[in-house]
């Protein structure tokens, strides 16, 4: 008997009922319909969000880079890059604008520079040469940016501190096993959700209206938004804490708050520290942009310089922000390795 005619398995049968069973099919009309629908939706959305134009611009940009035609994208980028370097480190101030400037008693590290500049006179429609004296500080601008960066870090610190102060009580109230009643639970959860759903920049806009320009608005904005995030983390952590020790203290007659303090808090503390660290890092990153709406920090300087097309100043600021964030990431990684 050849293998081909040999009956499959050892019970030969004329017909198998299973021959008419429905098999698994990878491609079904339903799947094709779904795929078509998705394609249409994505196409529509891409047009809505100008993704088609983006593709076109990118192709043009590549063309411009290899020397065919010109591109808005490339000219925009080169416009920035041409002016962005070198980084501005020194600061220049016209001596005429300084009150009681004494050329014999210059401030520390500064020197005086005389520059001849052409000045346009609108009345006579002619150029004239003017000698302007500048007081130059070799690291003046760098120091200014660093001071602003420090202010940004401080904003993040206070924002995180207030955030903890808001989220700790709210977190406890929105932990299902420690909330006094359902209404308080829903209220606290709702409030945390509300805080979470408001982006910092938008809250900052409101606080700028209320407190004026400056770090107060930024700090409060950070505190409100991140308390929503932190509070939820805190609450979830309390709910998931091991129940054994809690039961042990409860059956010895200890009240809710004491059980929370001694059976829950020590257990969740490492996690809390990790969350706060994460929120602090996040707050530093956010604080750098809050200045754009006038809420203090390095972003205010950034926005001001950007609007004046001082891209060389902007690049200094960006560099400092980059270095700071990198450094903090490094430090917090070291810290985390120690606390875990």
């Amino acid at each position: 008997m050849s293998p081909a005619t040999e009956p499959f398995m050892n019970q030969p049968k004329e017909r198998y009922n299973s021959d008419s069973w429905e098999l698994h099919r990878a491609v079904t009309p339903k799947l094709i319909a779904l795929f078509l629908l998705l394609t249409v939706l994505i196409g529509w959305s891409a047009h809505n969000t100008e993704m088609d134009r983006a593709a076109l611009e990118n192709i043009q940009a590549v063309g411009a880079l290899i020397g065919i035609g010109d591109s808005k994208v490339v000219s925009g980028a080169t416009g920035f890059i041409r002016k962005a370097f070198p980084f501005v480190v020194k600061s220049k101030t016209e001596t005429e604008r300084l009150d009681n400037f004494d050329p014999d008693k210059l401030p520390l590290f500064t020197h005086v520079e005389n520059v001849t500049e052409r000045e346009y006179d609108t009345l006579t429609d002619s150029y004239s040469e003017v000698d302007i004296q500048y007081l130059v500080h070799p690291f003046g601008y760098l120091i200014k940016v660093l001071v602003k960066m420090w202010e940004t870090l401080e904003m993040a610190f206070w924002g995180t501190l207030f955030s903890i102060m808001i989220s700790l009580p709210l977190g406890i109230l929105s932990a299902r096993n420690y909330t006094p009643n359902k209404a308080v639970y829903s209220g606290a959860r709702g409030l945390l959700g509300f805080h979470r759903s408001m982006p910092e920049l938008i809250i900052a806009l409101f606080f700028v209206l209320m407190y004026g320009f400056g770090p107060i608005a930024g700090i409060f904005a950070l505190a409100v938004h991140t308390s929503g995030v932190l509070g939820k983390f805190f609450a979830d952590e309390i709910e998931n804490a091991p129940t054994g020790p809690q039961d042990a203290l409860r059956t010895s007659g200890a009240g809710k708050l004491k059980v929370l303090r001694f059976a829950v808090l020590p257990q969740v503390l490492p996690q809390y520290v990790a969350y706060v660290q994460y929120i602090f890092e996040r707050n530093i990153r956010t604080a750098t942009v809050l200045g754009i709406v006038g809420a203090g920090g390095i972003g205010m300087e950034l926005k001001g310089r950007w609007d004046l097309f001082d891209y060389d100043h902007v690049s200094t600021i960006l560099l400092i922000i980059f270095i700071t964030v990198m450094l903090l990431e490094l430090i917090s990684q070291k810290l985390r390795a120690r606390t875990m």
Partner: protein
Amino acid sequence: MLELHRVSRVYEDGTRAIDNVSLKIGKGEFCVLLGPSGAGKSTLMGMINGLVIPTEGSVVLWGEQLERANLKRFQRRGGMIYQKLHLVPRLSGLNNVLNGLLPETSLLRSLFNIFPEKNQRRACRLLEEVELEEKHIHRRAMALSGGQQQRVAIARAFMSDPNVVLADEPVASLDPSISRSVITLLKETARQREATVLCSLHQVEYALEFADRIIGLRAGRLAFDGSPKDLNAQALKELYGTRPVPKMEVEECVVPEPDFIPELQVA
């Protein structure tokens, strides 16, 4: 002083975890609760410390019926030792013992973890009594060995100067040499304070050695109540059934018959 009047615990599906148990335990007695797993030992203890509410009958402590309203007051007069210890792992041994006195510590002091020196001294003495050395008391509970943790748990249970101490399989997770010393410590500490102890055990030999009185539970019913010398082979058999008492149950292993495997011939 500790009375159970015909208590039962019936679950919704009709199973009776505790079925019509009546008990009277006097002051200072060291009672050992014996019985196979699932006999209702933990449930019975839970009824006494208020974790489990009896569906029938009543628990009477010091002539007063245990109710939801006076539960906290009763719990303060009782100590509890658990099989899984339930210490707070990240707190120091000393702090865990002090936790036993939380109900008596003011809220403000508790929140900032500032216990009065008097209480700390008391905790140290208890720790000395359960033979924990000074160098260990500030270590986190999770860093202590099983035996040391159980000593801390005993000290915690006695911190509130309890009249009744319930110990739910206190030596289940310890090796035999440490088990003996832990039960000895438990008994000795209780004897000095004239505290009543209700301790559930799986080791019959310890029950025979330490108990003033043995209470046997089987399928939620009282199966034995008497002194260790009354616990003879017949009583043990009634209590644990036909199973060999101290040994682990070994499930019968069924080796299946190998199925008929079709042989494929290759030409």
